[in-house]
């Protein structure tokens, strides 16, 4: 590819448009790899046989808080499979509530959400395609349940541009980080040379936090292909799993080739982690297994607006509940949708999260001594009524 003058889009090379680099090509496997492939196939079969029904992933896909229709989620066994566009399976397109679901044997998977104009088949992305590489990849499925994965998707805004620079011994990678199409401040751009350690270890190089113009720049880079990621911790602390409010980005057309004597310029759309939004939505979906009843005060009047919740742990404290209802209606009626049968500890309160405060409605199901109900998958348990009182009133 020949460089052209400053800020003129020259090669317009989307990685993969003209074929992926050899390391990720889809050629026939060499003989020595065939044995490994057979082992992997047998392991997959074994895992599938040992996996309880109802195992896989589910979630919703959003962009800027709005659900996305028509996106698909692609599951891959390895990062090499991601780069080779070799998914294990692909979800059906997300429907009007943005939801998707994949049945998979237990194990670890790399999950990506894409909406390609070219269609469902996996392949290189084009400008205008939507893309998200999940920040928690690879993600482990819990056996016997659908593990929730929320995606916040970004659009490939422009193609990679190259320009000639005077320094012929090294290259430059520069660009602008955007969130919702606008430059974003305070983001560290990270460069990795390899995909080992799932991009969680020390980066080859890290930019200072972007300024208000969202610009970043790496000078004097050795010519190589770089995986470009971005992170910004809402708490300012740099370790641990991503949390709500954190910003994460995995550049759509990774890895990005940087060449000696050339500046590579990208426009890097990142996302704000919104897993919890998806989680709430999935919690309210009708699974056919649910607990329902009324929430009343001491005088037998419905208490509108409180939540009912279900814990899988008897202490019913020190963490968020596993399942919650929508706020109860004027008749005090609630429904807690459950992913499967089992034993659940049922309670109710005004707010969702944190410790209840003075004056807050609070109660637990008193129909059993330990506040639990037990049901099997496909069962609807009715008249699990609760009485609430205001704390310290």
């Amino acid at each position, binding site marked *: 590819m020949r460089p052209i003058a400053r800020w003129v889009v020259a090669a317009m090379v989307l990685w993969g448009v003209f074929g992926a680099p050899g390391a990720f090509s889809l050629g026939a496997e060499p003989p020595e790899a065939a044995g490994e492939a057979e082992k992997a196939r047998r392991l997959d079969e074994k895992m599938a046989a040992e996996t309880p029904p109802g195992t896989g992933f589910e979630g919703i896909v959003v962009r800027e808080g709005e659900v996305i229709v028509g996106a698909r989620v692609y599951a891959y066994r390895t990062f090499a499979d991601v780069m080779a566009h070799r998914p294990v399976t692909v979800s059906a397109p997300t429907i009007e509530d943005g939801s998707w679901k994949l049945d998979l044997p237990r194990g670890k998977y790399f999950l990506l959400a894409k909406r390609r104009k070219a269609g469902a088949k996996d392949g290189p992305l084009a400008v205008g395609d939507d893309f998200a590489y999940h920040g928690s990849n690879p993600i482990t499925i819990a056996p016997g349940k659908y593990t929730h994965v929320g995606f916040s998707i970004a659009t490939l805004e422009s193609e990679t541009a190259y320009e000639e620079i005077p320094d012929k011994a090294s290259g430059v990678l520069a660009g602008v980080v955007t969130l919702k199409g606008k430059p974003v401040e305070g983001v560290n751009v990270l460069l990795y040379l390899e995909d080992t350690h799932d991009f969680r270890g020390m980066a080859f190089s890290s930019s200072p936090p972007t300024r208000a113009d969202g610009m970043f720049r790496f000078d004097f880079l050795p010519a190589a292909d770089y995986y470009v990621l971005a992170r910004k911790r809402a708490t300012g602390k740099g370790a641990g799993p991503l949390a709500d409010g954190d910003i994460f980005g995995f550049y759509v057309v990774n890895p990005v080739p940087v060449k000696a004597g050339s500046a590579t310029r990208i426009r890097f759309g990142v996302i704000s982690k919104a897993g919890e939004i998806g989680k709430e939505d999935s919690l309210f979906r009708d699974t056919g297994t649910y607990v329902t009843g009324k929430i009343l005060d001491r005088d037998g009047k419905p208490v509108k607006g409180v939540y009912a919740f279900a814990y899988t742990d008897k202490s019913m404290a020190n963490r968020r509940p596993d399942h919650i209802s929508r706020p109860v209606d004027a008749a005090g009626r609630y429904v807690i949708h459950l992913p499967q049968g089992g034993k659940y500890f049922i309670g109710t309160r005004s707010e969702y999260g*944190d410790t209840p405060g003075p004056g807050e409605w609070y109660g637990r199901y*008193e129909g*059993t*001594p330990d506040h639990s109900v037990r049901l099997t998958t496909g069962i609807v348990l009715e*008249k699990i009524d609760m009485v609430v009182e205001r704390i310290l009133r």
Partner: protein
Amino acid sequence: MRIRSFFGQALFLSCVLAVPSSSHADRPLRYDHGYITQDTTWSGTVILRGQTVVKRGCTLTILPGTVVKFEWVDEDGDEIGDGELTVEGRLVARGTKERFITFTSARENPRMKDWTFVQISVNKDAVVEYCRFEYGFTGVQVHYSTATIRNCLFRNNFEGIRFSTTDVRIENNDIVDNYYGIRCEAHGSRTVITKNRFSGNEFAFFPVQRNWDSVTIHENNFEGSTGYDVKFGINQKQDMDFTKNWWGTSDPREIAAKIYDGEREATLGRVRFVPFLAERVEGCGIR
């Protein structure tokens, strides 16, 4: 398929029958994962295995001299004994200076965390006086309740007292040799902590989060903490009033050295300890 709550009620009735396996006056009273569903009085020796719950609407009265022992069980493998007494009705544990009520481990060689806690949950006017709590994870936890804890000894527990959203008066207690003396999340509830003796704890006072001036902490003696006298949790963003306490010294630099707050980590609130008392408070601890 739909099931009415009849089944739930049936289960409830079956659990009501889970009463003590022995109630003879000369033998220890034993509960094995029991539910107490009527007003009950304990005396002598009571042995608890697993979780024992006093249900809503019922009062548990514990008489002076009663010894409550928690058997070691650790079904979930978390290295904390599963024994607990949870009171969702009302607890009246009123010993005397001569005849304390004791909550302890049933093990021959007891250790910290041998049992979980005595938990007071959504009680009105719970009373805990002249009681001894030892070798628990938490001696007493109080949540969403009104309660008085007075003239008690908390020793060799991981936490002496933990409370959240509770109007509680904690007065004249000896809180010694625990990892955390008091751990709290008051959340605007009205709490008075006074005339207590804190000694030999790793952290005497551990406000986790959401504590502010609704908590009154005056005229206590803080001495001999091996870590900090006050250590703010990472989410304790509000300032707290710790004025008018004795800190074992009248040197403000020495006092500050035993406090972990916003002076050390900018995101935390601050401990206000000035003015502090220049000498030990008389009448602190059990009287």
